[in-house]
């Protein structure tokens, strides 16, 4: 029993709500109501992505839709992916690479608007958290220090402590550091740690959730 207007799909980076292009906000809300109320499992607290082709809903509508999802179903909208019109492939063929992330609260701005810049070293016992976006640290994160972000974590220094990116479940979040020698890394619900005695490699590295659902670390060249 497929709903013609909205579909709910689980992908590697979390739940995706796929919206049919040619509908109005009211139709979408009605369809969501039908879809989610008919489910046995409550989704409260889960984060969700919205996928659609360009211009079915205005940014005003998107904001209303986000409020609707949050108020009625307690869902956290972690990203909106707008797909290229020319791209004839099914919407979710390759969500991570084709998507353009768009913030709901800042029109057409990347979600760095709500992000945080920290101009100091995070020392043992100190925690920096940004639950609305990404964190950029102009300094080091020392052993015993901790950084938590809803989005990405970028350390323009050495990351020697703990880092938890995508804390609300955004598995496309990444952790980048000039020197990546952490105690532990977490992205969403995945955790990993480097082998004991890992030495700094001398180049920037990026950690992300790889194909096997494990956190992989590789040389950071560009996004």
């Amino acid at each position: 029993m497929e709903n013609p207007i909205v579909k709910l799909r689980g992908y590697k980076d979390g739940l995706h709500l796929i919206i049919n292009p040619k509908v109005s906000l009211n139709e979408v809300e009605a369809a969501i109501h039908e879809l989610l109320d008919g489910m046995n499992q409550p989704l409260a607290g889960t984060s969700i992505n919205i996928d659609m082709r360009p211009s079915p809903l205005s940014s005003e509508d998107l904001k209303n839709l986000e409020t609707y999802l949050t108020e009625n179903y307690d869902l956290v909208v972690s990203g909106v992916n707008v797909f290229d019109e020319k791209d004839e492939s099914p919407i979710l063929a390759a969500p991570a690479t084709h998507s353009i992330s768009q913030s709901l609260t800042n029109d057409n701005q990347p979600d760095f608007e709500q992000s945080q810049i920290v101009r100091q070293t995070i020392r043992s016992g100190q925690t920096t958290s940004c639950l609305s976006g990404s964190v950029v640290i102009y300094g080091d994160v020392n052993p015993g220090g901790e950084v938590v972000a809803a989005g990405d974590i970028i350390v323009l220094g050495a990351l020697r402590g703990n880092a938890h990116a995508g804390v609300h479940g955004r598995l496309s979040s990444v952790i980048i550091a000039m020197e990546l020698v952490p105690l532990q890394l977490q992205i969403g619900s995945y955790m990993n740690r480097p082998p004991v005695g890992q030495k700094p490699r001398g180049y920037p590295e990026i950690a992300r959730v790889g194909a096997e659902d494990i956190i992989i670390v590789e040389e950071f060249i560009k996004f």
Partner: protein
Amino acid sequence: MGKVIVITSGKGGVGKTTSTANLGTALAMIERTVVIIDADVGLRNLDVVMGLESRVVYTSMDVIEKRCDLDKALVKDRRVEDLMLLAASQRNRKDDIKPEQMQEICEKLKQEYDFVLIDSPAGIEQGFHNAAAGADEAIIVTTPDVSAIRDADRIIGLLQHQGINSINLVLNRLSPTLVKNGNMMGKNEVLDILNIDLLGVVPEDTGVIASTNRGVPLVHSEGSPGAEAYMRIARRMTGQRIPIPEMQEENFFANLLNWFSRNK
């Protein structure tokens, strides 16, 4: 108006008391007026290291509870002029003193003396907060091992949170031979993590043990590497620019090469 400097580390046994005794003595030797305060209430030992145990009559607790004047509680050193000790009470506990009371003592002392050095207890509890309460600056003492450095890092965070921004490092008990063999962290590795200014490096010196047991600070034994390092640190504290020498291994050929390169 003088400076109040807290000497702290987080971890115990890294040389806070030894450093306080030696820096206090060294500063007095280069003609500064100095008070050293033992803030380790209940576990005092700065008086023992200074060899002044038998002369302590009043403590900071007596001053706080107004049993005697501050001037009367200061014990004069028996070797150098212008060096005073304010001992801690052995009968009380650390939470018997409030940070404001410590602050008041420091405020009064810095009107009259050039340097007020506070020997902080180990840990991050009340005793540490009392010790740091009246301080304008801090000296972190650490040994080059990971646990001491981890604790030092935590302490730096706490001091910065308290608004103390002038924080300098004394790296204690560095053994050039162990560093060279890769068995000990070097100066640069420690600085890379802690990211604060280095005030000086004190090499491992067995003379410290004897001097502590005799109650005569090491700086009195001229020519010992530890004493020289502490003298250099004291001079830097008075604003003199003295470069930090690269630690040389005890090696005849290295010294010879060094001698040649200096006389080129």
